[in-house]
Every structure is written in structure tokens, then in C-alpha cells.
């Protein structure tokens, strides 16, 4: 090996491989995280040049302070009804997640992914968009569907891959799609939706439309080439798109340092591409709302894209197939210094005199009942209990939608499969 060669005057090189500062057995330590006080970050005019936002990519937009007050220039001044609607949607997502997680554990489906602690980045942002703006989510923004009033039962049917699954049992659970609700199909291949969102936004501009697009990606997935292609195109064509990076600090077992989060912020990716950027407390629903609305206004005014880092924490495992206690301290999520978005909004509402324990227990009861009822309805349509003969839905549908018209070879294979099933039944 070349390293054996003597070069006495030169030091040996060594490879830096980032490591998180706490592993299982260590005390969880978030002291390295700089958290500026709520309200301390300046809010530029919507027509600001991208460069005027660039100092904000190293800071953190926060509205709710420790007492639950909304402070500073970014306070979106939402009325109590709207705050309660956001609160209710976030609570619904959490209860839904818990139910479906349990359903997976009960063997009713193959897989599930929770968004615990990240409800605000989907729900509050969805409330700040127009209903007909198109979203290009990842598997952790089920909150957009909830905020847009998509039926919970249909979401569950998708998770169960049952007869009423709008996607005919073809997609993994949680990989929803709804054109009508402005929710682009989720891909299992990370980052692919990012340039697609930019393309959708470019098309909207080409056609002189007024709708904008909003894309989501995880911190880990920003390492994919598609992320960089998307940001390049978005900047070049000033596409009317919001590019959200949900920095929940973990990508399965790899911490955000492995994606470059140790070197700079994810929001700072905006700087090199010359587009507007913001770094936002993703556990602060008001900050998420305000930043999204600001970026949406810019996009609508034809001022181009904004990249928003939603700084949050993945409280639960990556998915039902993951055990986070193997790679990070137990209860790391509970120690996250920016708190829980649901608890923070509740505290704010209570402080305003717009919420109390009676209303809280009423809400929990109502939403629990709603989710339970949806689950009952969904399970009437079956769950993913399958055998090599009995399937949750009509097997002949497997050959549909490969093309608009089924070519001869697929018709032949369809017939072959029907014959196989008959043979099995004998």
C-alpha cells in the first residue's frame, strides 16, 4: 500500500467520519444546539432579495416563547378559531398515527411510519397554503391530508391495502396519493419528488396559473442528487415553489451530520444557489405557519423559490421496522429542547384564554371517536391479511394501469394468474 511509503516530512492523513455526540448509554446532550429567543429574528419584506434572507439561514425563526406567548415580527396573528383548527388537526394526526402503529403491531398491515413531533411542519404549513396549491410530500407529511380534510377512513384503507384502498393495494402503507387534495403520490425512492415539484411550479408559471407548489424532503435525503437538481432548477427559473427540508436530525440510524448538517445548516443550502432561505423552529406551529405564508406570498408574487429548513426532531423510530434505542440514547425525543408542537400550541391557546381542560378532554374524546369510527369502517373493507389464495382485493387488478390499454402480453399473464389461482383452490 502507498501508505507504507516513508514520506518523513508529511503528516499522515486521516478520514473524518462524523459521529453524534451521544450514543445508547450516554446522557442525551442537546447543549450544542443554539436556540435564539423567540421573536428575535428579523422578518424581511416579502419582496426582499434572496441575499437579504441569507443571514436568517443560520438563525431560527421562533414565535412562541417558553410561556406560550406569540412574540416578534414573525407572529402571524392568527385568530383563535384558526389556531384551534390547526391544533385539532395536529391532535388528529397524532391519534391517527398511534392507532395505525398499533394496527401494524397487530398484524393488520405490513408497515407504518409515524410523524410524532413533526405534526406542525405538515399541518401548520398546509393551513398557510391555499387549498389548491400542490404539495409534494414525503411519507412523514400525512398531516397535509388531515389538514385538507381527506377522509381518515380512506387513509386507513390505503394503510390496509384493502378493497377500498384508492391505490388498489399497490403502494406501501402511508404512501398516499390524492390529486384532488393536492397531495402528490409518495415515492419510496427518496428525493425524486423534489425536482418534480419544481417542474410542477415551472408549469404553473408557463401557463400563467396562480397556484404554487410546496415540496418536502428529509435532512438525510438532501444528499441525493435530485435535491441539488431541484434547487438549481428552482433558482434558475425562479419557480414558484416552497422547498421544505424537514430536519428531524435522523435518517434511519444516521444522524444529520452524515448529510452535512455538521458543516452548516440545511437552510444555508439556499445561499449557494442564490435563492431565499429561512431556518424555522419546526416545533412551533406559528413559526411554521408564518414562514410558509411568507414563502407562499413570494412565490405568488413571482419572486421565486424559498428553501425552508424546518428544524425538528424525530421522536419515534424511523418506521415500524426500526429500533432507535440501538443507535441513540433512550428518550432522546422527550429531551428535545424545542418541545412538542402540540403541547406548545395548547399552552398558547390556554394563555390566550381560548382553551381549557374541558375543551381539551372534549376534543380528545371527539377525535378518538372519529379515528376509531374511521378504523371500524376501514376494517369492514378488510386488512392486509393475505395468503397465496385469498387477497385483500381482486387480483386481476394487478395488470391494470400499467398502461392505459392492456397489451396482449399482460392479458396473457392475467389469464395465467387466474388459472394459477384456480389450480391453488383445488
Amino acid at each position: 500500500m502507498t501508505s507504507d511509503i516513508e514520506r518523513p516530512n508529511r503528516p499522515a492523513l486521516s478520514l473524518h467520519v462524523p459521529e453524534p455526540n451521544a450514543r445508547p448509554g450516554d446522557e442525551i446532550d442537546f447543549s450544542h444546539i443554539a436556540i435564539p429567543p423567540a421573536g428575535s429574528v428579523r422578518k424581511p419584506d416579502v419582496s426582499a432579495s434572496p441575499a437579504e434572507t441569507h443571514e436568517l439561514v443560520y438563525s431560527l425563526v421562533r414565535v412562541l416563547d417558553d410561556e406560550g406567548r406569540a412574540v416578534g415580527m414573525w407572529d402571524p396573528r392568527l385568530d383563535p378559531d384558526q389556531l384551534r383548527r390547526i391544533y385539532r388537526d395536529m391532535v388528529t394526526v397524532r391519534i391517527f398515527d398511534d392507532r395505525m402503529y398499533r394496527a401494524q403491531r397487530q398484524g393488520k398491515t405490513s408497515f407504518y411510519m409515524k410523524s410524532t413531533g413533526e405534526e406542525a411542519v405538515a399541518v401548520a404549513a398546509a393551513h398557510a397554503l391555499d387549498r389548491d396549491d400542490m404539495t409534494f410530500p414525503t411519507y412523514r407529511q400525512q398531516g397535509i391530508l388531515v389538514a385538507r380534510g381527506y377522509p381518515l377512513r380512506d387513509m386507513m384503507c390505503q394503510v390496509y391495502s384493502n378493497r377500498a384502498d384508492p391505490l388498489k393495494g399497490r403502494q406501501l402503507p402511508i404512501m398516499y396519493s390524492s390529486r384532488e387534495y393536492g397531495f402528490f403520490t409518495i415515492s419510496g425512492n427518496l428525493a425524486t419528488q423534489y425536482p418534480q415539484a419544481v417542474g410542477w411550479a415551472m408549469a404553473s408559471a408557463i401557463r400563467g396559473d396562480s397556484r404554487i407548489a410546496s415540496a418536502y424532503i428529509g435532512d438525510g435525503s438532501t444528499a441525493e442528487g435530485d435535491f441539488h437538481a431541484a434547487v438549481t432548477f428552482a433558482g434558475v427559473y425562479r419557480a414558484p415553489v416552497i422547498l421544505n427540508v424537514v430536519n428531524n436530525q435522523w435518517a434511519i440510524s444516521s444522524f444529520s451530520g452524515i448529510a452535512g448538517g455538521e458543516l452548516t445548516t440545511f437552510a444555508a443550502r439556499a445561499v449557494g444557489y442564490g435563492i431565499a432561505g429561512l431556518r424555522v423552529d419546526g416545533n412551533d406551529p406559528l413559526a411554521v405557519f408564518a414562514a410558509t405564508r411568507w414563502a407562499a406570498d413570494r412565490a405568488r408574487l413571482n419572486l421565486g423559490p424559498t428553501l425552508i429548513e424546518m428544524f425538528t426532531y424525530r421522536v419515534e423510530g424511523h418506521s415500524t421496522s426500526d429500533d432507535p434505542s440501538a443507535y441513540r440514547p433512550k428518550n432522546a425525543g422527550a429531551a428535545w429542547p424545542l418541545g412538542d408542537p402540540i403541547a406548545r400550541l395548547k399552552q398558547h391557546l390556554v394563555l390566550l384564554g381560548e382553551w381549557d381542560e374541558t375543551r381539551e378532554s372534549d376534543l380528545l374524546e371527539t377525535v378518538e371517536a372519529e379515528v376509531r369510527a374511521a378504523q371500524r369502517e376501514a376494517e369492514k373493507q378488510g386488512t392486509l391479511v393475505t395468503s397465496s389464495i385469498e387477497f385483500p382485493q381482486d387480483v386481476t387488478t394487478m395488470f391494470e394501469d400499467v398502461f392505459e390499454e392492456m397489451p396482449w402480453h399482460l392479458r396473457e399473464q392475467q389469464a395465467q394468474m387466474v388459472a394459477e389461482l384456480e389450480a391453488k383452490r383445488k
Partner: protein
Amino acid sequence: MNMIQAINSAHDVMMERDDRVVAMGEDVGFFGGVFRATEHLQKKYGRSRCFDTPISENGIIGTAIGMAAYGLRPVAEIQFADYIYPAFDQLVSEAARMRYRTAGEWTLPLTVRSPYGGGIFGGQTHSQSPESLFAHVAGLKTVIPSNPYDAKGLLIAAIEDPDPVLFFEPKRIYNGPFDGFFDRPVTPWAKHPKAEVPEGHYTVPLGKAAVVREGEAVTVVAYGTMVHVVLATIEAEGIDAEVIDLRTILPIDMDTIEASVKKTGRCVVVHEATRTGGFGGELSALVQERCFYHLEAPVQRATGFDTPYPHSLEWAYFPGPIRIGTAIKKALEV
């Protein structure tokens, strides 16, 4: 040992013997890989020899090519074979042609491991079998083991090979052989003769198929998970088939196939990848070219269907004993 342990052991043996061997990929370091194929390696060999990479398959393969160009022997994991496509350009345009375009000045002793295939409810993005795409590219070797013994020996051979090797691991049988019947549990490897895996160094040569069952009536060529489904099928049907486990997709061991087909006069090719343009087409063309006058019936194929992998219907999609049995009977009809 199960197949995961055998793969882990191959890494361990090679990292111990040769300090140029490094393991890299998403979640490969501290965690040991989502399937645990690289468990304990970081602890034993340090972070600069076994490390996590950014989620960038293109970056993983591109940098692995650079490392191999330096003289290391990188073993890069792509978490699921379905995610190898972002790295397609680096593999196809760069790795595959490096030796050729530089007249041998640069060679790439690079191994790319990836779990592939269906049967674990992975949906259409965790189930595909991309081997024929790589077989179509001049300059890449593609290997698919069907049992722990072969997995370890073939992986060591791949790491020692001076050229880039794609090593696809049938994740359906990581834990044990699988007979293709839904209602029968996967048998753990512990009960299987192929689970006897030596601790130390040995190789199973690349480019050599194995006759896993001798027979007279028909030759069945399969690889990966399908070897087990074929064996279960012929046992259930009581057919005297000769079963060939291809082990290496490219270069193909035509001598073994040819000898067998000339003996039996019949041939069935089985894989779980989609049918059209699949590797079964190449195999049947080769058999027709070389054994035409010995064939008593057209070569048959039993494969996955030409649709993406459907999450909830994978048990209808997957070639099981009925589909394989039908193909074999067809080959025996004439």
C-alpha cells in the same frame, strides 16, 4: 449461520486479511446496516474502514470508484436494489468501462452489495430484481447467491476480484430457505445442510454454476430465492428434474447448462424479475443457440409478471410452485 451472518463473516474475514478492504453505505457503520450485514465491523476495524455514507447512491458508487482507483477494495452497500438507479450512471458509464477505456491502466476492484427481490411486503420500491439491467452492460459481473455457504464464498471471491462486481442478496431467504408456499413458514438455515459455513477464508468461484440436484427429465435453471421454490416444486410434483443454481448471472456458466440440457433435452428458466427483457430471455436464447438439436420442447420461462411489484398482491405476483410447476409440465409435454 444464516445468510446475513455469512455475509458479515465474509466482510470480517476480508477486512482482517486485507487492510485495503473498506465497507461503506447508508446506515452501514454504527448500526451495522438495516439488515445487519455489517454489524460489529465498525467497532472492530474503526470508523475509517466501516462508515455511514450520505443518502446518495450516486455519491456512494462514485466515491467507491475513486477509492478503488486509489487501490482500496471498497464494499459498498446499496440499502435496497431498488435504490441503485440513482447510481446507474456511475456503474454503467464509469465502473463498467474503466478497464476497457484505459486499456487496463485503471482497474476497479469494487464490490456493490444490495438486498434484492420480493416476498417481504416491500411494495414496488423494495422488491425489484434489476439483474438483467446490469447483465446488459458490458464490464459488470453480477452475482446472486442462494444459500449462506455460497454467499460467503462468493462475496469473498467478489471482493478479491479485480473487476467491479454487483452482489445481489435475495433478502427473502436471508433467514432461511423459502419454498414459495405462503402458508409454510420460512425454515431457518440451521436445519439446512447449506448452513454449515466455515469461519475462515474460502471462496466459491465467480462464473461457476452449481448443479444442486441431479435429474434426467428436465433442466431447471434458477438463482437466488427461486432455487428453493424450484426444489420445493419438483419435490411436490415428483419430477426428476436437474436443478442448476446459476450463482453468477454474468459471466454465465454455459458449460454446465449446456451439458445438462444436452442430457435432459428440456429446459425451464425461472426468475422472479419481470418476464419481458428479463435474464430468462438471454438464457433461453443461449440454450436454443447451443442445444437446439438436443431440445425436445421449447425452452419455458417462469417469471414475475410484467407489472411493478404490487404490495398487497405480491403472493400472486411471485412465481410460486404452481407457475413453476406449469412451466415444467409444459416443457415435459411434447
